[in-house]
C-alpha cells in the first residue's frame, strides 16, 4: 500500500532543503525586478547560471578561495545586468522580456558548447569545487537532527549557509523598500513619467534594481550548486518560469512572499510527485507510466501559473493595491 509516512517525510524535508533556499533567493531577486520595479526579467536563469559557473570556474580553474569565488559570481551578474539593462531599460517592457530571455539562452549555450570544454566542462558540467567550502565547515563530522531532518555535517552546513543568505537578502530587501530609494522604485512601477517629472533619473534606478535582483539570482545559483554538480541543462528557460510561479504564488511585491512561496511550491511538488509515483506503483492510475507521472508536475506548474494570474494576481500574501500589472 502507499507509504504515507515516506511521502510526507520527503515533502517535509523540502521545507529546509538548499534547493528551496536557492529558489527563494532567486524569487526574491525577481520580486525586486518584477514586483517592486515592474521590470519583466525573463533571464533569471542566466543570472543563476553566471553565479553557479562564476563560483565553480573561479574555484576550479583559478584556485580562488571561497570569498573570491563568490565575488566572481557576483561580478559576473553585475556585468550581465549592465549589458542587459543599458540597451533595453529605456524601451517598452516587452523588449526587456525578449532581450533577457535571449541573453539567458546565450549564457546557457555558451556554457554548453564544446568550444570551451576545458573551462566549462561542456554538457557534462563541472564538479569537484566543494573542497574550499567544506573546509570552512565548523560543524564536527556526524549525523544531526530529528524526525525527517537528519543530515550529516556538510548537508547542515549547506542548509545553514543557504538560509542565512536568504535571511540576509530578505532583510536587505525589507530595508531597501522602507527607504526613500525603495519609494522611488515603487513609484517607477506605478507611473514612470510622474517619477521623471519629480526629477529622478528613472533609467539609473532601473539599472540599480536590475543589478541588485541579479546579484540575488547569482547568489541563489551558488546555493543551488552546493548540494549537486553544475550542469548547463539545469539553466533552461523553464527554470525562470518555475521561479515566476513561486513569485506569483507568494505575492510579487512582498518580501516574505517569495520565501514562503518557495517553501509551499517545493513541499507541494514533492508531495504531489511522491503521491503520483506511489499511486502508479500500486496500480491506482493504470493509464500512467512512472515516467509520465514525472511529467505531470510540469503540467501542474503551468496550470497553477495560469490560475494564479487569472484569479489571484496578488498571490497569497500580496496586497491587491500593489500589483506589478498596472498596464
Amino acid at each position, binding site marked *: 500500500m502507499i507509504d504515507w509516512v515516506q511521502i510526507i517525510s520527503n515533502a517535509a524535508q523540502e521545507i529546509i532543503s538548499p534547493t528551496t533556499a536557492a529558489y527563494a533567493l532567486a524569487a526574491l531577486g525577481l520580486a525586486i525586478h518584477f514586483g517592486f520595479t515592474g521590470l*519583466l526579467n525573463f533571464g533569471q536563469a542566466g543570472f543563476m547560471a553566471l553565479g553557479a559557473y562564476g563560483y565553480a570556474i573561479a574555484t576550479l580553474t583559478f584556485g580562488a578561495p571561497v570569498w573570491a569565488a563568490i565575488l566572481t559570481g557576483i561580478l559576473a551578474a*553585475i*556585468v550581465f545586468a*549592465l*549589458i542587459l539593462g*543599458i*540597451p*533595453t531599460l529605456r*524601451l*517598452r*517592457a*516587452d*523588449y526587456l*522580456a*525578449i*532581450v533577457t*530571455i*535571449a*541573453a539567458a*539562452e*546565450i549564457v546557457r*549555450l*555558451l556554457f*554548453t*558548447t*564544446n*568550444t*570551451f*570544454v*576545458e573551462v566549462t566542462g*561542456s*554538457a*557534462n558540467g563541472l564538479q569537484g569545487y566543494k573542497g574550499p567550502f567544506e573546509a570552512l565547515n565548523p560543524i564536527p563530522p556526524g549525523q544531526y537532527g530529528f524526525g525527517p531532518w537528519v543530515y550529516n555535517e556538510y548537508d547542515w552546513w549547506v542548509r545553514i549557509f543557504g538560509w542565512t543568505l536568504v535571511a540576509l537578502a530578505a532583510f536587505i530587501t525589507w530595508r531597501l523598500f522602507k527607504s526613500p530609494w525603495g519609494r522611488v522604485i515603487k513609484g517607477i512601477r506605478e507611473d514612470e513619467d510622474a517619477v521623471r517629472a519629480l526629477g529622478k533619473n528613472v*533609467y*539609473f534606478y532601473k*539599472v*540599480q534594481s536590475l*543589478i541588485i535582483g541579479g546579484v540575488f539570482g547569482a547568489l541563489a545559483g551558488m546555493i543551488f550548486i552546493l548540494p549537486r554538480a553544475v550542469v548547463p541543462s539545469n539553466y533552461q*528557460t*523553464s527554470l525562470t*518560469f518555475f521561479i*515566476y510561479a513561486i513569485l*506569483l504564488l507568494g505575492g510579487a511585491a512582498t518580501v516574505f512572499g517569495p520565501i514562503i512561496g518557495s517553501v509551499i511550491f517545493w513541499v507541494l511538488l514533492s508531495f504531489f510527485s511522491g503521491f503520483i509515483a506511489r499511486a502508479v506503483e500500486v496500480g491506482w492510475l493504470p493509464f500512467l507510466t512512472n*515516467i*509520465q507521472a514525472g*511529467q*505531470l508536475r*510540469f*503540467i501542474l*506548474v*503551468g*496550470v497553477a*501559473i*495560469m490560475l494564479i*494570474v*487569472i484569479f489571484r*494576481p496578488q498571490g497569497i500574501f500580496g496586497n491587491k493595491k500593489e500589483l506589478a*500589472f*498596472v*498596464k
Partner: protein
Amino acid sequence: MAHAAGRPLPHRAMRYLTIGLFGTAIAALALTFASPASAEDIGLDEFDNKISGLVELADEPLGDVQLVVDGGGFRVEVVSGDDGRWAVGVPERGGYTVTLNEATLPEGIAVIDPELEQPNVRTITVGQSGSAVANFFIGQGPRNTTSLFDQIIDRLFNGLNFGLLLALAAIGLSLVFGTTGLSNFAHAELITFGGLITLLFGVTLGFPVWIAIPIAILFGAGFGWLNDAVLWKPLRRKGVGLIPLMIVSIGLSLAVRYTFQLFVGGDTQQLPGATDTTLSIGVFGLSWIDVASMGVSVVVLLGVAYFLLRTRIGKATRAVSDNPALAAASGIDVDRVIRIVWVVSGALAALSGILWAYFRPGVSWDMGFQILLLTFAAVTLGGLGTAFGALIGALVVGLFVEMSTLIIPSDLKYVGALVVLILVLLVRPQGILGRKERIG
C-alpha cells in the same frame, strides 16, 4: 555601478560603452574559436546511447582527428584520442551522420572507398542496443573536399529554407501581437501541434502524407481558434492586462508542452520520407523535400500578403493592428478580426511545424519550443506587430543562423542570431520595418 550613484554618463556615451562591452566579448569568443575542443569522450554520462569508432591507418592509431556527429537536431564534434578511439553520447536512437574532417588527417592521407561518392561521410543508425560504430577506410589518396563556394551555396539554401519556415510561424505570432498586444509564448505549442498531428495521421493512422498535411493544417487552425475561444477571448472580456496575459501564455506553454510529452513521449519520430536519401537532388546537398518546402512557404507567404493587402478582412486586420479603438468605431467587428487572426495564425504555425519537422528532421514534443526564441527574434528584428517585418526578420535570422556556421562552431549557431537581435535593438529598437512611435 559607479556612475549610477554619481553623475549619469551621457546616453550616447553609455551606448558606446555597451557596444564596447559586446565588442570585447565577441573578440574574446573569436580568439577561443581558434583552438578546437579536445576530448575523446563527450556526453557519455549524459546520454544513454553511444556512437564510437576507431581511427587507424594500417593498424596504427591516428590521434587528433576531428569527427562531427550530426542527426535529429543534435550535433557534436569530437577528436580522436592518442589510441585513435573516440566516443560520443547521443540523446536518441535513430539515424546519424558521422563526418570525418579530412583536413585533420596527416599529410597525404584520406578516407578512401571507391563505392561511395563521399567516403568521409558515414550514415549509421543507433538501434535497440543503444550503440553504433562508425569506422572509415583510411589510406593514401586524394581528399574529398567540399569547396568553400559549395559550402556557401549549401548554407545559403539551408538558411533560406529555415528562414521561410520561420517566417510562417513569425507572421502568425506577429499578427496576434499586432491585433491583441499579446506576446504569446504558447505559439511554440501551435508549431509542435502541426508536427504531431501530421505524425498521428501520416504514420500512426497510415494516411498518405499529402492527405495528412492538409488535415494537420486544418487541425492547427482549429487549435488556434480553440486557444482564442476558450482562453484569450474571456480574458480580453475580463480586461486582464498585457503583462498578466503574457505570463498566462507562459503557463499555458508549459502545461501544453508537457501534455504533448505525456502523450507522445520524449522520442523523436520521423515523418514519411523525412530521412529518405533517394530524394536527394545531388546538387548543393538539397533534396526534393527542401525544394518542396521552400516552394510551399513562398506560395503561402504570397497568399498571406494578398490576404493582408487586397481582401477586406485583411485590411480590417491591419486597421485593428494600427488602432483597435478607431477600427471598432469605424464599424469593424474587432472580435471577429481577432478570431480570424487566431485561426490563420494557428494554420500557419501548424504548416511551419510540419516543415520544421522535415528540416530538423523529426517530430518531438518540444520541437516548437526549440525555435520559439528565434521566432521572437524574427518578430522583434522586423518590428513588433508588423507582418512584413516578421517575414524579413525571419529571413535574416534563418540566413544568419545557417551562414554563421561557416565561421563559428555549429553548436553556437543560435547564439549568433540572439546576439544580432540584441545588437539591432541597440541601434534600431523599433526593428527593421517598425515605426518609432511603437517603442516608447
